[in-house]
């Protein structure tokens, strides 16, 4: 891998617009969609699929449109160039345009610098996170009144489905995409990911997926929620095709992201970076990547089956022709439950990574924490049937899945124990990232405990399908993932960008989010116990006061996010205040490098000769890292 750019004269702006970049990609993507749609129309007009014939839709056209559109989009970005060269027998190369002097342009095209891809992920996922959040606001607006509706029932269900799919599909990569891509090479002493083109590919594929999901609104939406349950899916309009296309691409993207991260960590650790010296965040990435690599293909396969049902008229999920809707439930949740841990584990990694820094003491129980993460990874493949407790599964199966689900709380408890052990007698600094980590601990405790009720078959029967279940997973996912996501942002963004974020606005963001979050989702437990069903546009009038309270608090969450957005825009664009190389006095390798980190990361591959968390140990050694351009 060569490392630095040769400065050349910049071509004029109009010339830079022509070539392999986002603009070309969008043009080719639209052209590809139209061509695919047209070909589909020649193959079959209109579709005679089982339930959509009356709608006069052509699912083949829609799927071919999406397929060709994505291919055109990727070609426009330049993803076909290297494969064609390899087809002609030219040698493999890691060289790609990553020149730092290209400025903002490199963020709008194929770039294989892991730091650029990470920032692309940050912006891209942030955009879709905002859309998912906007959907949530619309859902809560609808629920202000049980009888007077802002949206129709179908629109409401589409909003619920889009919110869930957007959050569960895109946000799975919210930590691995930006933070693992940026941090893993620096933390293990590598200059790059093992397969840099695949790294870039996962990002752009995810962006294409997000756009496909949004197009569902042009085809009547989908009424299945993020779980895409059958036979509702088969009966749905072409809007369901968007759901299938979206999640299939997300599945492929997740598989490749996990594959690449795992390959990098296994093969590209610098000398001295043994498995027992691996930063705990990297262990979180390892366990998540294993789940992504193995669980996501099952999702992709299930979605391909669904696509076949709607196009070539197989009957995987059509009971009348030998299929079964329960097959979908099984396949979906074989992926779906590990997915919960795909979302949670990186959050655990971030929390445990940050705690030693702000407690100024070594991570308590490093090996216990690693065992906990790997234990969660293993057990998460054996719990999926608890999602089917009320779907008429064989009663004899229930005890096993109840037990396996309850067992998973033990390794999860390990991780929580390590967090508490690290806090114990630490010299705690209540910085903004630390506040978010503490918020995570508080929220996840409630999320975890309420999960035990749902793993228990008798109590699950009464709470499944109610707002109790929804409150539980928002406490684990939003309370767990989103809080650690923000902790990571406040902790690493100054390093990634070289500019400070406002501490005051950060604290305002934390306290408003923490209070509003608990005021929103805490009452949902009560609403669930009172029988408020999920995915129903109306509810008993007696539940309106509590629902109104929840809606107002949800708006407060949105306001809190606006504070964050203002902080980011003001601090990083308008009031740029340069940040020092190691603002938190961290011992972590990435903070031993200058800010901003050079394109080639290290002058030479570093040698690690110390454990990752030597806080409070006298003298305090930091890992030996040879940064580019001198010491930090």
């Amino acid at each position, binding site marked *: 891998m060569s490392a630095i750019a040769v400065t050349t004269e910049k071509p004029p702006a109009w010339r830079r617009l022509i070539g392999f970049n986002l603009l070309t990609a969008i043009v080719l993507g639209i052209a590809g969609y139209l061509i695919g749609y047209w070909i589909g129309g020649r193959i079959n007009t209109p579709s005679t699929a089982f339930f959509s014939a009356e709608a006069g839709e052509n699912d083949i056209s829609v799927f071919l449109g999406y397929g060709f559109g994505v291919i055109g989009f990727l070609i426009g970005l330049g993803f076909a160039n290297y494969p064609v060269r390899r087809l002609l027998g030219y040698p493999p190369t890691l060289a790609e345009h990553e020149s730092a002097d290209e400025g903002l342009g490199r963020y709008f095209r194929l770039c294989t610098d892991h730091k650029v891809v990470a920032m692309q992920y940050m912006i891209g996922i942030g955009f879709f996170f905002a859309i998912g959040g906007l959907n949530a606001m619309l859902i809560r607006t609808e629920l202000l009144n049980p009888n007077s509706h802002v949206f129709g029932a179908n629109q409401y269900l589409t909003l619920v489905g889009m919110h869930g799919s957007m959050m569960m599909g895109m946000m799975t990569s919210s930590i691995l995409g930006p933070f693992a891509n940026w941090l893993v090479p620096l933390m293990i002493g590598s200059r790059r990911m093992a397969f840099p083109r695949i790294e870039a590919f996962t990002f752009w594929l995810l962006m294409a997926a997000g756009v496909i999901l949004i197009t569902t609104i042009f085809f009547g939406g989908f009424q299945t929620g993020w779980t895409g349950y059958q036979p509702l899916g088969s009966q749905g309009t072409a809007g369901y095709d968007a759901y299938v296309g979206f999640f299939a691409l997300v599945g492929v993207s997740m598989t490749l992201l996990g594959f690449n991260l795992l390959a990098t960590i296994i093969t590209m650790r610098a000398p001295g970076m043994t498995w027992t010296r691996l930063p705990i965040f990297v262990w979180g990435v390892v366990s998540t990547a294993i789940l992504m690599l193995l669980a996501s293909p099952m999702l992709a396969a299930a979605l391909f089956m669904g696509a076949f049902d709607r196009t070539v008229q197989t009957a995987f999920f059509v009971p009348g022709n030998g299929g*079964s809707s329960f097959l979908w439930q099984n396949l979906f949740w074989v992926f779906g439950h590990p997915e919960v841990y795909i979302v949670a584990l990186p959050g655990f990694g971030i929390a445990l990574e940050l705690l030693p820094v702000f407690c100024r003491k070594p991570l308590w129980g490093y090996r216990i924490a690693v065992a906990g993460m790997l234990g969660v990874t293993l057990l998460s493949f054996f719990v999926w049937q608890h999602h089917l407790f009320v779907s008429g599964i064989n009663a004899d199966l229930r005890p096993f899945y109840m037990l396996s689900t309850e067992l998973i709380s033990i390794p999860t408890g390990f991780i929580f124990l390590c967090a508490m052990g690290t806090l114990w007698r630490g010299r705690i600094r209540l910085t903004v990232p630390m506040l978010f980590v503490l918020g995570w601990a508080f929220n996840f405790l409630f999320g975890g405990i309420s999960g035990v009720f749902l793993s228990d078959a008798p109590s699950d029967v009464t709470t499944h399908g109610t707002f109790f279940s929804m409150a539980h997973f928002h406490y684990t996912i939003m309370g767990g993932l989103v809080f650690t996501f923000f902790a990571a942002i406040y902790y690493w963004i100054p390093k990634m960008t070289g500019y400070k974020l406002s501490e005051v606005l950060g604290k305002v963001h934390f306290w408003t989010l923490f209070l509003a979050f608990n005021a929103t989702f805490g009452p949902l437990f009560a609403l669930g116990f009172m029988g408020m069903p999920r995915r129903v546009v109306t509810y008993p009038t007696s539940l309106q006061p509590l629902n109104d309270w929840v809606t107002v608090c949800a708006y407060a969450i949105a306001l809190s996010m606006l504070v964050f957005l203002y902080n980011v825009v003001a601090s990083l664009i308008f009031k740029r205040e340069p940040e020092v190389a190691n603002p938190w006095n961290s011992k972590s390798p990435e903070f031993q490098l200058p800010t901003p980190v050079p394109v080639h990361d290290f002058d030479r591959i570093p040698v690690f000769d110390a454990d990752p968390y030597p806080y409070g140990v006298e003298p305090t050694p930091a890992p030996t890292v040879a940064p*580019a351009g001198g010491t930090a």
Partner: protein
Amino acid sequence: MEASAPLADHIKPEPREWQLRALWVGARMLCGAAAFFFMAFLFAYFYLRSLDVNKSWKIGTVNPPTGFGVGIVVVLVASAVLLRMASKRPTEALPLGLTALALALLSVVLQVIAWTTLGFGPASGGYASVYVGWTAWYAVFALACVYWIETQVASIWRMGREGVKRPRAEGVPADDVELLGAGLEACSLFWAFYVALGVIAWVVLYLV
């Protein structure tokens, strides 16, 4: 990193074995991902067969074309064996590689012909759905493998033609021959595993 930029003098290259190890590990992880992908179809087969909803596991006469099935499996196994043999001597593997490539492509062609001779449609029950879905996605990924094999064969061909004049791999400190060997080993390993998945599919769809 810039395509045309040399490594600056004060910047040391990464260890040469990293890329080779990445290929070795990557191929094995891909095997895991492929196994889980097709496990979904295996699950679907036994799940739908055991449920036999409305006695619709097979609607009417549903028999897969045995001759084609056997032919496809034989061709696949031969291709995998030849490619594995080729990986042992990468610089002299052009004939073996080419034959393996041709056989891999032939397996897909045979599968396409087999679909045209089916005596049943995709909607002819649970079995028919699994048969069509499983074989279709197997063929799609087999085509991707054909591409991978082709890149290896083309590399062998170009290396043989250009010899030492061949442009060096940019950004990869490993030797060209080492890279070729590692790439071929990874490709042949994955292809052999993929063919093994095909044999399992054949046993399940044709024999069970």
